[in-house]
């Protein structure tokens, strides 16, 4: 029966998680009804298509009304319009801010502007994510970006508190914000093999080590912008390839650290000079905004092709190492730090790996800690 008007309002707002997901995925009401019918809810409780349709419409309306509140999730907790149990609120928020990796991979590093928004239909066609869902995700990115832009304090924490997201999701958003802010180019064909999670990992490393926030944690934008000073200082790494002694010392330190930890060790050792040169060159140019944007492309393009081979997925370097280096990154400290031995292998291995990645050497630590995942993936490819 076609109703002129048909509403159902509960004192405690009734929400079906399945329907919520369909709504988030951008299904139209009629498509959602079809999906639900196939899912077998009808048999479960002797419902008819009419009932299902009416229920779906109701829920869609509820979600639409809630959507406004989800823009600033903190409101959801103290608004009076809907009585929603807190655990449900958490689900609503988390799901609303969840995104498709395929989609985010497309907009990663792009400016979150109206222009990009206009291209969403192409992305939608390409990724098979409905346009509606694309818009939602894009708007979420933009909203998070806008809010954290003006906040002090650690990025991940800000996101978590403002949007009441889980730690994992907050970190992902931090990566998205970071990429969008620095406009890293990720869309090139050569980078296509990298997943969002690869980039997210790199972003995590960069935020922890390369941003202002890594030194001072009460500055605005501290985790969003790269530390200019630091980038300046990177130039001085050139000495690692110009000075033969330092090169050798560097090589030996790296080799000690990596010996026995990578299958590609021999190749790495053999090509060390080329490798080192490639990475240091990239590092030295990072003062230029354009080069920052091309950072990932450069990593793939401008390091010797054997990079892939020398790295191995069994190599691990504990992140702390990276951060320590970062903190003493003034040139004065920089060179001396060539001398301290890399952390003992045991510690490296036993420490819970945040993620498998490789590193080849001290200078490369700076770069490679983030390029690691790129490389890893490239190895996978070359293994094939």
């Amino acid at each position, binding site marked *: *029966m*076609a*109703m*002129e*008007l*048909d*509403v*159902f*309002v*509960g*004192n*405690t*707002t*009734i929400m079906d998680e399945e329907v919520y997901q369909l709504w988030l995925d951008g299904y139209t009401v009629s498509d959602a009804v079809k999906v639900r019918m196939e899912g077998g809810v009808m048999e*479960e*409780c*002797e*419902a*008819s298509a*009419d*009932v*299902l349709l*009416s*229920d779906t*419409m*109701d829920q869609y*309306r*509820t979600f*639409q*009304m809630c959507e406004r509140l989800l823009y600033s999730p*903190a*409101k959801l*907790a*103290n*608004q*009076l*319009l*809907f*009585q929603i*149990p*807190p*655990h449900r*609120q*958490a689900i609503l*928020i*988390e799901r609303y801010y969840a995104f498709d990796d395929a989609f985010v991979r497309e907009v990663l590093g792009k400016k979150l502007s109206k222009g990009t928004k206009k291209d969403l239909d192409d992305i939608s066609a390409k990724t098979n994510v409905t346009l509606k869902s694309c818009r939602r995700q894009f708007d979420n990115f933009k909203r998070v970006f806008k809010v954290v832009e003006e906040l002090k304090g650690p990025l991940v924490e800000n996101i*978590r*508190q403002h949007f*009441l*997201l*889980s*730690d994992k*999701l907050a970190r992902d958003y931090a990566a998205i914000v970071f990429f969008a802010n620095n406009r890293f180019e990720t869309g090139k064909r050569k980078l296509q093999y990298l997943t969002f999670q690869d980039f997210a990992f790199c972003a995590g490393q960069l935020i922890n080590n390369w941003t202002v926030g890594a030194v001072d944690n009460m500055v605005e934008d501290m985790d969003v912008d790269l530390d200019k000073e630091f980038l300046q200082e990177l130039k001085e790494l050139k000495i690692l390839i110009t000075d033969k002694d330092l090169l050798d010392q560097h090589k030996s330190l790296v080799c000690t650290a990596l010996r026995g930890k990578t299958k590609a060790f021999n190749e790495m050792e053999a090509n060390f000079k080329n490798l080192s040169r490639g990475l240091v060159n990239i590092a030295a140019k990072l003062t230029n905004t354009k080069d920052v944007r091309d950072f990932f492309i450069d990593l793939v393009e401008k390091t010797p092709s054997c990079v892939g081979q020398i790295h191995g997925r069994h190599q691990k370097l504990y992140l702390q190492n990276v951060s320590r280096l970062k903190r003493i990154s003034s040139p004065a400290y920089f060179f001396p730090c060539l001398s301290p031995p890399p952390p003992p292998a045991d510690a490296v291995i036993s420490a819970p790996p945040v993620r498998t990645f490789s590193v080849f050497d001290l200078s490369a630590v700076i770069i490679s800690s983030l390029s690691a995942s790129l490389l890893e993936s490239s190895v996978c490819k070359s293994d094939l």
Partner: protein
Amino acid sequence: MPGKLKAKIVAGRHLPVMDRASDLTDAFVEVKFGNTTFKTDVCPKSLNPQWNSEWFKFEVDDEDLQDEPLQVTVLDHDTYSANDAIGKVYIDIDPLLCNEAASVISGWFPIYDTIHGIRGEINVLVKVELFNDLNRFRQSSCGVKFFCTTSIPRCYRAAMVHGFVEELVVNEDPEYQWIDRIRTPRASNEARQRLISLMSGELQRKIGLKVLEMGGNAVVGYLQCFDLEGESGLVVRAIGTACTLDKLSSGSAPNTATHTHPNTAPASNACNSPSKDGKEPVFGEDLLSSSGPPTPFRALPTSSSSPPPLSPSKPCSRQSSSSDTDLSLTPKTGMGSGGSAGKEAGPLKTLLRQQTQTALEQREFPFFTLTSFPPGFLVHVGGVVSARSVKLLDRIHNPDEPETRDAWWEEIRQEIKSHAKALGCHAVVGYSESTSICEEVCILSASGTAAILNPRYMREGCLDIGIVDHRFEDPSPPSCGFCHIPYDELNMPFPTQLTYCYHCRRQKVPDVLFTTIDLPPEAAVTGKGCLIQARLCRLKKKAQGEVNATAISNLLPFMEYELHTQLMNKLKLRSMNALFGLRIQISIGENMLLGLASATGVYLTALPAPGGIQIAGKTPGDLSNEHHILTIQKRINDTIAKNKEIYQINPPELTEEVVGSPIPEPRQRSRLFRSHSESSDEVSELDLSHGKKDAFVLEIDDTDAVEDIHSLLTDATIPTGFNSCNTEIMPGIYNWTSAVQMFTSVRVFRLSNANLTNQGLNKIFTDLCENLLKSFYFKLRSMIPCCLCHLNFTVAVPEEELIQVAVTAVAMTYDKDQTQEKPAEKPITKGCIETEEQLQFPMELCADSSSTNTQLSSKISGVQETTNVSSRAASVDYGSFADRCSTWLELLRLKAHTIRRGSVKTSRRTQSLAHSVSSLERSSPVPDGRSRSLRSTRGFGGSSVTVVKMTPLSFLPGTRIIKYLGIINMFFIRETTSLREEGGVSGFLHSFIAEVFAMVRAHVAALGGNAVVSYSMKECVFMENPNKNQAQCLINVSGDAVICVRETDQEPVPSNIGQTCTSETDGAT
């Protein structure tokens, strides 16, 4: 005597952006009470302003305190142009006037705008210092407590039940004033909201005064309604039951100590407007004989001369009475003779009656709006009594003297009273009144259940409930006593089949019992109950004024007849024998009438088992037809058998052999008191009564009948795991767990086909209701096993071709494992024992019971043996019925022509009977089982918003109410001029209903409460104009704000659960 009202504006949050340039708002607040206004400072450029104002003090009369709401307006300051209103909050300060209720109002209130809905929230603090007024001539009635709950509130004890109070106030509807043409919709809506708020305040105050006069201190079962009469005005009316309540817990309650002059108040005070009819030219002579303080013995036997030749308007009563007061000179008291003649019945009964009468006599209307009672209060139940009257609305000329409206209700109440008397009852319980208005025609309806009450509660110095006063107590056990007939069996007011009570074997019980009250908790029931609905649509020609009124009043009896038939059939089909909570609603539209009867069907152990349903064809010769009938018969029998299983109805067949009684011949008897009009014979022939051994016979002689049977059989079954009822308690379920989900659902269906037939309409209407129910089951499937309680359907015809159905109900979970325990076995075994103890004259009486058995069983097996046994007596003869009706209608029509603008009136009376056996002594409807697992919905930690539960019932399972904080009675208007943008009509109404819930919750939380009980949505008027992209909706809700604690706890549940939710919530992930 003044009181001092103090208000403080603390802060705002989530305000809307009023200044597009800055995306901010410069908000300030105006606080208004009466004619005094205070302002806060402007809090510039903030969406979360902190005003932290001083205390604004209003020194006012307590009369004003009762009438006026505190009005808080939030505005956006604008230097150059006029300040923009953001929205308003009306705070009813009544709860603060009663020392036992809330002491402070403090909390976040949604800021409401009639055009934009909720726009942010404001934190307000309100206190009252009241100097008690002991002036005899005061106009205020502070301190009288009001309860919507239709039973004695849980933490009180009824020291005395004084009786009926009513009042109505009228005013011009601002929407129809000339000024409305020039003011904005917002201004007009606000004027309306404010006026209604004022009127309800005034109404409550006036009722309070009446209560004080009667010596009471509270009104229970307070029912307030609005009649939006359009051009002719706005009526706010209320009824309730005045009581003296004592607080049970140690706490306060000083003023309840001794109000021991209940009956000193002159009866006429109870109703300040009655019996003015004589002066009303329009109502001329008619009421003279019947109004005035009636005594039961005064029943004028002579006046029984002629209830008009009406007839089958009311099959329920198996005898219909329909009278047009204006047309016929017949006083309705004619009915009274039947009732009073019953006096010979038994000396005991008479004594009892006299006792009670002395108490009740002094009351103009011995009516009680309660639907459930303290144990022992209800002695016997006669059956449903109801009256309807069709009126033409006329402009209310002088709002200060609403005589016309008062007179109308007075008339109807008189009629109800006389109906009750005819049933041998001196009181009416479960009483309610309602109206349906379309243009200038209005149907006034009243209904209740005729009953005999225990006089104890009526007298002064009344007794503790614990002490049982045996003197006047009927010897019948509480589990079946109320089923015993109150009238004299030799002189029954209407034909019915009497048998000895299946439970105590001492008293007579009818075969079927219809009531408007809740099932008494102590009643013995077999199996479970279920919701039974009869639905009906009738087309009507469009007409104006009197012609229209006449047409409607002509249709009414037919509708009631059919609704009753449907109810009866469905009852039989479910193998049940009693209806509780019966509510019949008839709504008028321009071109149709809608009738909806809802009730909860039950198998009362004390009443005889219902016979089956027998199908009979009119043309026996036709073979194919015969075959057809056989199939239908088989289907019916199968359904009955299946239903018995579903509802676990397995009555103790054995006991039937013991029971039996001389079956009176109904026809003869009925003639005794029926008027000698030509209709009486026919009426009794038409009579639907049937012996218990007789099947209920449906004759298929035309397509209508086939349709009826089909609709009977197509009623959807309830999915497993669900139960439904429209009463407070679901018979057969006792172990509630604590999950509660209250909901409101509204549907509007547009009839697409212009020329629909009655059948087509019926089908649509039935489907509409059925689909709604199905929807509920589907949506609430996660709560299985659960029961939908207090399903309250409201139908309306907002426009031509639109049917609107609104439902409010609550779903409650129960523990499946325990449900099986209580039903059949226990009561039966116990019943038997008791029977043997009490029964001195067992066997002989039951001559025919064995045949009943065989017949019953044959029914079930689908064999048709008994057709001829009873077809004559029980068949519904559609043909002849119609004939009779038409003659009667003509008569009416003729008369109708003679009346002037005034009133056309039909009345009707329903009585039904039945009775039952049983003995299970459950003193509480919700036993121990429910204290388990009450946590489920309470689990929300960490939100800064108080969780407020809402339920239409008077209790929350698993919790104990420790304090009543006051009545919630709110009226909202919402209008939009951007309907499409708000998601169409559904989107608009959806958010409005959600907003109404939010505002109710916020007010309750501000009073310090955590739940609303007896919640109801009284009015939901929805109008749309899609072409103009506009819609408007009015909603009126009410309920009791309470604090409840888990049954095991002593301390109140902290009303504020946690302060922040941020950190906690993501812990979950």
